[in-house]
């Protein structure tokens, strides 16, 4: 029995397989959040929904069947997994954190100091894109995906990259007063451009770049070249969908904030 999905070289089967490591990760997250909620005196429904969304994204992405298909069969599913793990789950998890917990974090100078440096927007976008390139580099993918520990490492790097990337947008510590809505929107627009490199590399590489997927037991409905092109398109379009949704939400909040401050000014006048 495997504890984490990895490339096994076995023909694909729709027979369910357990991946205990994924269950443990989900259980740890749930226990952590329940304790956090208790210490914070409860959390509102919106934050609970955000947490449920984050856990569901991780669980679906890492467990069977998506996790198994992503680890050893289809680069396109690997990309869906990346989107869920790095772009969907981390912001939801950050949004689910209650205010008292953020305040508690701010009171820890060592952690707050580290976050101050790592989540500086320019640093975050460089770290994120560096990790995205690294974890999509053929030698890294082919070298790690056939080992459970290697596959686990890639998934954890994606989660880390996602946290670093989203922290400047939704994180509340450190408070970055100057990084308001316009800059957050610009940051996300920059991110939609930054993933173009991997997209071009995958979509327009004529030959399959990953031995893991090229030499995997075939899935009948797609060739290895089509699969790789689909992976590139998914990165661009799926990633774009997530980022532009976030941009739209930020625009909405920005508008509301402007409306609110305008009304306040009118009242004062």
């Amino acid at each position: 029995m495997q504890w984490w999905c990895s490339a096994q070289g076995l023909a694909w089967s729709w027979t369910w397989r357990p991946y205990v490591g994924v269950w443990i990760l989900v259980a740890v997250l749930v226990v952590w959040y329940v304790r956090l909620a208790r210490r914070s005196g409860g959390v509102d429904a919106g934050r609970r929904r955000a947490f449920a969304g984050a856990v569901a994204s991780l669980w679906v992405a890492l467990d069977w069947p998506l996790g198994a298909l992503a680890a050893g069969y289809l680069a396109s599913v690997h990309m869906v997994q990346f989107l869920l793990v790095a772009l969907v789950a981390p912001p939801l998890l950050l949004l689910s954190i209650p205010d008292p917990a953020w305040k508690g974090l701010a009171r820890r100078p060592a952690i707050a100091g580290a976050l101050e440096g790592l989540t500086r927007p320019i640093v975050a976008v460089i770290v994120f894109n560096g990790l995205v390139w690294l974890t999509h580099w053929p030698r890294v993918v082919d070298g790690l995906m056939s080992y459970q520990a290697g596959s686990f490492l890639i998934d954890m790097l994606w989660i880390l990259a996602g946290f670093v990337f989203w922290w400047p947008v939704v994180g509340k510590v450190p408070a970055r007063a100057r990084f308001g809505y316009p800059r957050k929107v610009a940051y996300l627009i920059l991110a939609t451009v930054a993933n173009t490199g991997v997209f071009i590399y995958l979509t327009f590489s004529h030959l399959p770049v990953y031995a893991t997927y090229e030499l995997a037991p075939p899935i009948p409905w797609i060739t290895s070249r089509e699969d790789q092109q689909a992976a590139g398109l998914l990165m661009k379009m799926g990633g774009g969908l997530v980022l532009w949704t976030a941009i739209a939400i930020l625009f909405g909040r920005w508008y509301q904030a402007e409306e609110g401050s305008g009304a306040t000014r009118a009242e004062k006048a």
Partner: protein
Amino acid sequence: MLLPAAALLPGCGAGAGERAAAEPAPPELRGTVLEPSWEKPDFTLADTEGRPFDFRAGTEGFVTLLFFGYTHCPDVCPIHMANIAAVLQDLDYAERSRIRVVFVTTDPERDTAPVVRAWLDRFDRSFIGLRGTKEEVDRVQAALHLPAAIRQPSRPGPLPGAYAVGHAAQVIAFTADGRARVVYPFGTRQSDWAHDLPKLVAGGPWPEAGLGAAAAGG
């Protein structure tokens, strides 16, 4: 100025190093080069139309990729076939038309002619499918220094009585001069085929000719 002695003695007096420099080098291939090469085996099996196919005559003058496998194979066979087919589509017509791909089933019980044809057509309609009795196919494989295919119990699955066939996983490449010169094991990638196939079509010189080695039998 001092000149090397060999430079003063052109023609028959030239040194071995100079001869090697003057002769074109064998193409660098990513497959495993057979030294010495093997003779193309002489056998006849039934094609997917049920007609006898004389392998030596039917592939004469072509670069020929020969593979032994079976259509229920979950991994090696479809991967080899798919990768070769994908790269063949990239070659220009002149190169493509000088290559034959021959698949010999090692599972004649399940691989009827229509089954083999339908399976090969998924990859490329020009691929040639051959069938014979197990004894006939074993003889051909022995001539190519390949182990005979063996029937193995498959992993437990939904189909009772299903079985796997253990078989040689390499593709043997014959050049147009009728010699088996390169072997491509499982794990050969499209980039490897794309690198080697045009060189195989372009021809030698091949190592044994260039190095003056004796021709080897099959």
